[in-house]
């Protein structure tokens, strides 16, 4: 049985201009120990889907799904009290801006021990040693000296580590990381990603990594889900996706990266992601797709071999050179 099973999740927001469909029929299936990346640009609904799972969306959101279960528990029909027992303990989430995700009024020890006390009972102060253990685990040097530090005294990388410590305190089965390194310097980013993967291996936890950075995905994840304008367009193992993207959006996204530029100009994708008021008829990507045909402009596509496209790109045969030699693959 899969650890996390989401089928056809849809999230609508009530706004000043009418209803906004932020997430449209997204499905995700996760086993323990998996690392899945959800990739998309702004407006793709990648964060919203996971926030819906955690129950962190505002009252203006309407969540519908065929199935949304975690570890056998049905999250859709669960009472809020039961849900709170799971969120933070078995499912945890870390956010993008570490500097603002920690409560500025309380020191590090307070915040981490609060999580422990909330889920395991007992007095907050009795968890001091566990807190030091956790800080060590996330790679903070001399953790005893950091216990009384306040968030504004920590650097970005340090804050993110504290955040991670807080979130793995209860040894969750699933950790959702929402753009955990976007706000950090590149060397710190590398450290944090390594830390996440290491923790994931030692604790056997499943990791969902939400990001817009394809490069991070390539180096960290096992499987990738690509989202566009709230819809899930592709869901495949990482190496397959990078060598052989089958949805035109994925292909365009990969070729727009500067490292894949072959001429003087980058292969930009013309147009913009549709907003609330200008959703195209038919396939949402059709105005920007170089392969678009009449059918694409008229009818929304169904999942076609797992790809949300009327005409998924063909499967390419594997190139003869072995991948393990460290050769770079050029997407053409």
């Amino acid at each position, binding site marked *: 049985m899969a650890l996390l099973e989401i089928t056809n999740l849809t999230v609508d927001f009530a706004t000043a201009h009418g209803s906004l469909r932020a997430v449209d029929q997204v499905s995700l299936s996760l086993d323990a120990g998996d690392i899945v990346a959800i990739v998309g640009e702004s407006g793709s609904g990648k964060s919203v889907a996971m926030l819906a799972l955690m129950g962190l969306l505002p009252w203006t959101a309407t969540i519908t799904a065929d199935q949304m279960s975690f570890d056998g528990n049905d999250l859709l029909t669960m009472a809020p009290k039961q849900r709170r027992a799971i969120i933070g303990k078995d499912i945890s989430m870390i956010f993008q801006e570490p500097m603002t995700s920690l409560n500025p009024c309380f020191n590090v020890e307070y915040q981490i021990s609060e999580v422990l006390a909330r889920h395991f009972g007992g007095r907050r102060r009795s968890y001091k040693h566990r807190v030091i253990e956790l800080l060590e685990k996330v790679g903070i040097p001399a953790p005893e000296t950091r216990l009384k530090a306040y968030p504004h005294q920590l650097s970005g990388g340090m804050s993110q580590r504290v955040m991670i410590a807080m979130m793995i305190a209860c040894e969750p089965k699933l950790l959702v990381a929402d753009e955990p390194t976007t706000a950090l310097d*590149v*060397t710190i980013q*590398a450290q944090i990603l390594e830390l996440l993967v290491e923790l994931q291996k030692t604790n056997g936890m499943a990791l969902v990594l939400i990001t*817009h950075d394809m490069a991070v995905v390539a*180096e960290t994840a096992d499987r990738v889900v690509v989202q566009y304008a709230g819809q899930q367009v592709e869901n495949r193992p990482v190496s397959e996706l990078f060598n052989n993207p089958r949805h035109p959006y994925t292909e365009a996204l990969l070729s727009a990266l500067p490292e894949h530029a072959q001429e003087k100009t980058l*292969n930009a994708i013309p147009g913009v992601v549709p907003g609330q008021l200008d959703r195209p008829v038919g396939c949402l990507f059709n105005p920007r797709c170089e392969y678009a045909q009449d059918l694409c402009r008229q009818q929304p596509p169904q999942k076609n071999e797992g790809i949300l496209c009327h005409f998924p790109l063909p499967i390419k045969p594997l190139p003869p050179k072995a991948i393990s030699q460290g050769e770079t*693959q050029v997407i053409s």
Partner: protein
Amino acid sequence: MTQHALIQARDLHKYYPIKTGMFKPNQCLQALSGASFDLYAGQTLAVVGESGCGKSTLARLLTMIEQPTAGQLTLDGIDLGDAHQKEVAKKLRQTIQMVFQDPFGSLNPRQKVGDILQEPLLINTDLNANQRRERVLELMQRVGLRDEHIHRYPHMFSGGQRQRIAIARALILKPKIVVLDEPVSALDVSIQAQVINLLIELQQELGLAYVFISHDLSVVRYIADQVLVMYLGKPVEQGLSEAVFNNPQHPYTQALLSATPQANTGRKRKRIRLTGELPSPLSPPTGCSFHPRCQNAKAQCKITAPVMKQHGDISVACLLVE
């Protein structure tokens, strides 16, 4: 044909005094310690580094928002140290302009786009209303926006469009140099590509010189002619982009390149693990600023601060590179 360099920077320093209390002496924040470079028309200099490396300070010095504590800065042949600051600044405003990082914060939320773009013309030129409007519309079209957009407010645009407006604003005074402070970092990949293409087109068409500040090495590699790598306010490596990226000499540059993820599966990088955090700029390490985190550090690195030495196409500040 020798054209003079549009920017000649020699040993620029910027220190900020920090008050640490009524009775203690002021501490000194060394934001920038010794940047030097030449930039010609049509070229792009990329300034690369992580937070606290001094790249934003450099941007502020170049655009004359602040004055250097020491060093010499010559823009388009005019030495900023010589003449009276205000007059010089007014003249040079039309030579150097800036595009900021945050497309959501760099446009006044309460001004219509048309007014935002007209503002530099109102302040610096004598054009009448019609001429101003013409120029604004001309630039709007050039960056790919429509005429009627001048009536809209910034929040009605997407991030990419706002950045285009910011670029239009930077170009409205017909500058020769544009400082771009992380112009595409906050944008999605597909929009990044559009904006970068626009910047390249404009550079070719108008012969602009760009100072491109970024932490994203893949973008820098694509767009830069020269690269200046900075760490904790000091330049550590400098040279032609090709040379620096293909054969980085300084350990920090090497670490930076190896830490940058690449969109290729199956690549087994030789990861240079950079341990520790960035030291505080208020109390930089003795000797070489990088030595606490450097894998190759030797005893002398703690004592002697290295200086930039030329090695072929690159200049490096490292005691171990000889």
